[in-house]
């Protein structure tokens, strides 16, 4: 039973990182109805830049984290300006944006390999002080708690920002009806760029937390989370922020529980995606899907 409880806790920890990655993904989709397939590359670069700041520039992780997050946000502005803005007025903008964001993801990945090397790299042991607690037979580390706290704060912060602030309401207005937002005086192009900034900053932050959690970072680590992130936002309902959070945790739980029950990690992805498939059969628009998935 303790093993089960332990896996449950682990699932929530890793699920919170998936959720953080996925809310950035789903935010851009919710506003623009497009998938930014360079999101996973930003996840990778965010983690690698944080590592570089710690290892080579000798910074504390508490300084490197916000700096690398800011850097990731700037990557988002570049993705918008290079991959999406030039195609926005084309009739095939949804499809062409998908392709050009894949291209930019490859550029980012190649840059990561060129600058940081192709090897798997690790945060130095001394990066973050780790305490280990045993509570009723369940092991929890202070690092895990910190990761889940940071992810939770960022997710709560985004939700509050979208609900309360003037810019957050403008983002929602653009998401709902671009033409109406424009007629109300919203600078739509600026709001879209800002949305990419927030989305990528959160994606980069998820990459840093992922790197801290597993200790290891590699230039291709975005690959595995890319498909998971997509599964998470489909599961939660495309464009839904709470859906992405719940979906992320559900996905993390299904992964670790599969490993715990089957005793092997071979079935991990198979079960997770089977669960996704089953949920979509029952609820085609996802758990929280208020927004209908586009059918063309």
């Amino acid at each position, binding site marked *: 039973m303790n093993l089960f409880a332990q896996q449950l806790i682990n699932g929530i920890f890793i699920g919170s990182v998936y959720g953080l990655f996925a809310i950035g993904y789903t935010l851009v989709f919710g506003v623009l109805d497009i998938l930014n397939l360079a999101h996973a590359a930003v996840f990778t670069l965010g983690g690698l830049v944080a590592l570089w700041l710690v290892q080579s520039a000798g910074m504390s992780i508490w300084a490197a984290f916000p700096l690398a997050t800011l850097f990731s946000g700037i990557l988002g502005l570049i993705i918008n300006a290079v991959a999406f803005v030039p195609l926005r007025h084309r009739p095939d903008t949804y499809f062409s944006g998908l392709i050009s964001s894949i291209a930019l993801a490859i550029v980012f990945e190649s840059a990561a390999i060129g600058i940081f090397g192709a090897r798997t790299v690790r945060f130095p042991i001394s990066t973050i002080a780790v305490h280990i607690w045993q509570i009723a037979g369940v092991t929890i580390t202070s690092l895990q708690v910190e990761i889940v706290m940071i992810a939770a704060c960022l997710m709560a912060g985004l939700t509050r920002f979208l609900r309360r602030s*003037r810019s957050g*309401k*403008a983002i*929602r*207005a653009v998401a*709902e*009806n671009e*033409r*109406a*937002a*424009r*007629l*109300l*005086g*919203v*600078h*739509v192009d600026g709001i879209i760029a800002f949305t990419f900034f927030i989305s990528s900053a959160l994606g980069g932050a998820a990459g840093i937390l992922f790197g801290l959690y597993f200790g290891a970072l590699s230039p291709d680590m975005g690959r595995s989370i890319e498909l998971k992130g997509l599964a998470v936002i489909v599961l939660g309902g495309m464009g839904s922020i709470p859906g992405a959070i719940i979906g992320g945790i559900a996905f993390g739980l299904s992964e670790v529980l599969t490993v715990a029950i089957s005793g092997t990690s071979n079935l991990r992805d198979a079960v997770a995606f089977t669960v996704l498939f089953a949920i979509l059969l029952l609820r085609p628009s996802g758990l929280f899907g*208020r927004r209908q998935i586009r059918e063309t």
Partner: protein
Amino acid sequence: MMLEVNHLTVTYGPIEAVHDISLNVESGAIVTLIGPNGAGKTTLLNALSGVIPVRGGNILFNGQDITRMSPHRRVAEGIIQVPEGRLVLAGMTVRENLEIGAYRRPKSGIAADIARMQERFPILKDRIEASAGSLSGGEQQMLAIARGLMAHPKLLLLDEPSLGLAPLVVQMVFDIVTELRQNGLTILLVEQNARQSLAVSDNAYVIESGAIVLEGPAAKLRSDPAVIRTYMGQGL
């Protein structure tokens, strides 16, 4: 002259949607555009709001050339459009819709304005925290007008405000238009309901196929046999 439109031409691809239109709106006046569906009335309003590009001609607002000004700056200047079909933000609450109406204004005074709108449009007061999508068509039109007023317009562009509404609500809309004018607001009104819109207007233009075919004081157009035959038939 608050608004001067000179030889305006707007094209959609190869189609000329608005051809060489000139019109004036005097400060404090209500000017009506009437004409059949697809005549270019909405296109003209969208060109005035800056959401579609202009091919030729120019637009002067209080003497300033705004032909190439971006839409959000025109809103800041006080040109506010209440679009056809209302375009309320259905997933946001009535209050949020009103708040975003004041997007280009400084924060102070917004809460007081929302209170004033609730007073003027009691229907919104009861539903202030409801999602705008849950309102009826007439309520949504009231919200769209209130949201436009939140921006403190100098010139209000009203596109088909009575379209699809029950007769009682249509009367409410025209009462509001009259009241706004008494408060000194300048209004450019696009309407299919020619009888009622001419009754509240000072001047009117008739647009057909993207060009102005008739213009003059509203009272004169109301008794024009061609206008009566084409736009006031069918017992409207």
